């Protein structure tokens, strides 16, 4: 069902875990649907994502999407990260089966949720 690239990323996912002293965290999805994705980041005062990691409960596509999306935002500014779309994640993975597109959407959502958390907590 999956292409080699997806399987390769699934086999050796990067950036897995939780960032120490993170100041951004986003959890999306739910157990009932069978996938939950959590991205943690440390964002420096200049708004640059210094580090990001993921934890995912889900299928191979969900794991591959999380790993890829997390890799894409490290070193980027918040604004740049917010511009990343699920389509770019899919391109990076050289394609996903149609019924697994939602996994890439989940990755995009997780990034947004984490940055959203950061913005809200920064103001307080």
């Amino acid at each position, binding site marked *: 069902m999956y292409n080699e690239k997806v399987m390769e990323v*699934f086999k050796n996912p990067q950036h897995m875990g939780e960032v120490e002293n993170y100041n951004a965290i986003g959890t999306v999805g739910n157990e009932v649907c069978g996938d939950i994705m959590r991205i943690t980041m440390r964002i420096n005062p200049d708004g640059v994502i210094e580090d990001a990691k993921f934890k995912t409960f889900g299928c191979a596509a969900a794991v591959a999407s999380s790993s890829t999306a997390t890799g894409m935002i490290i070193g980027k500014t918040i604004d740049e990260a917010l511009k990343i779309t699920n389509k770019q994640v899919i391109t990076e993975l050289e394609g996903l089966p149609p019924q697994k597109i939602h996994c890439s959407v989940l990755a995009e959502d997780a990034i947004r949720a984490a940055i959203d958390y950061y913005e809200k907590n920064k103001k307080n």
Partner: protein
Amino acid sequence: MKSIYLDHAATTPLSKKALEAMEPYFCETYGNPNSQHVYGREAAKAVAEARQKIAACIGARPSEVYFTSCGTEADNWAIKGAAAQYRDKGRHIITSVIEHPAVYSTCKQLEKYGYEVTYLPVDGEGFVSPESLEGAIREDTVLVSVMYANNEIGTIEPIKELCEIAHRHGALFHTDAVQATGAIRYDVKDLGVDMLSMSAHKFYGPKGMGALYIRNGLRMEKFMTGGEQERAHRGGTSNTPGIVGMSVALEEAMSTLESDGKYVAKIRDRFVKKVLDNIDEIYYNGPKDASRRLPNNANFSFRYIEGESILYSLDLAGISASSGSACSSGSLEPSRTLLSIGVPIGTAHGSIRFSFGKHNTEEEADYAVDELIKTVKRLRAMSPLYKEKK
């Protein structure tokens, strides 16, 4: 890399004996069994012999065995045929919540055409209770269809008892014995069933071959309309090599049923014990009493991780199993069977079925356990739901 097949409930390799027996019917004795010449007669003779063999294996008369293109067709025929034939008597059908889609979807379709279907619940191990059938059966119930053995969790249903209840209330009884045939010794007359479905590829026979037992004297509407084949009950040129292969495979399976069952159960039990001893926070789904469970079946739900990623990780390690949920086939619906026995929905997503076969070895089972332990550990480390016990 190792390649270990632990998915015998999905399908089995073809028996060498069956393959050899099939061989002449492709290019030499290729006649249409319905043709009136020597090619046809020879093929017809092979089909008749095969029918006899299969009948003998299940305690039926040859005239009660009808060949079909698969188990799914046999199930479709039994249910739709009975529904059509007896529609003036009633439009109520009873089945169970854990049936294979071959039965379940067929019943769902009949609902669209005005039939009423009751789906009997099951207990925590997947058993249908005779009491619940007593409670559900009505005057207008024409058919009760309950599977002999479940394909996901291996539950062996009390068919004889359920059949007696159906008959006492004037309803017909069909059983989907696709997983049971070749694994459990039974006699259709002793069971008392009116119809029974089987499928060759589950007992080391060829794919695309099934059979429906229909008790003599039972009037049944046709399903596959066409020519005069199968005593004018199932049109379509007979698949001579398939029929021959099926009969040889079933005979072989029956001749070593007890010893194969014991062997497979021993490997399965060893595997299950090691898994339960080494991995925490899991459920072993299905009957605990081995005498009421298919000898080849093991099914686990691993908390905090998802089945498809377990399946692919095992696949990368050379182990072929099956995910207990339909997620891998694209839908996000977890297994209806697992939900019916009370596995919480989140946990049901993390389910895997291992089904052993007579060619598996203890070493293979041990290797699979080791890889499974590693996989579960790796995926749990990745899961936001899992908190490692300190």
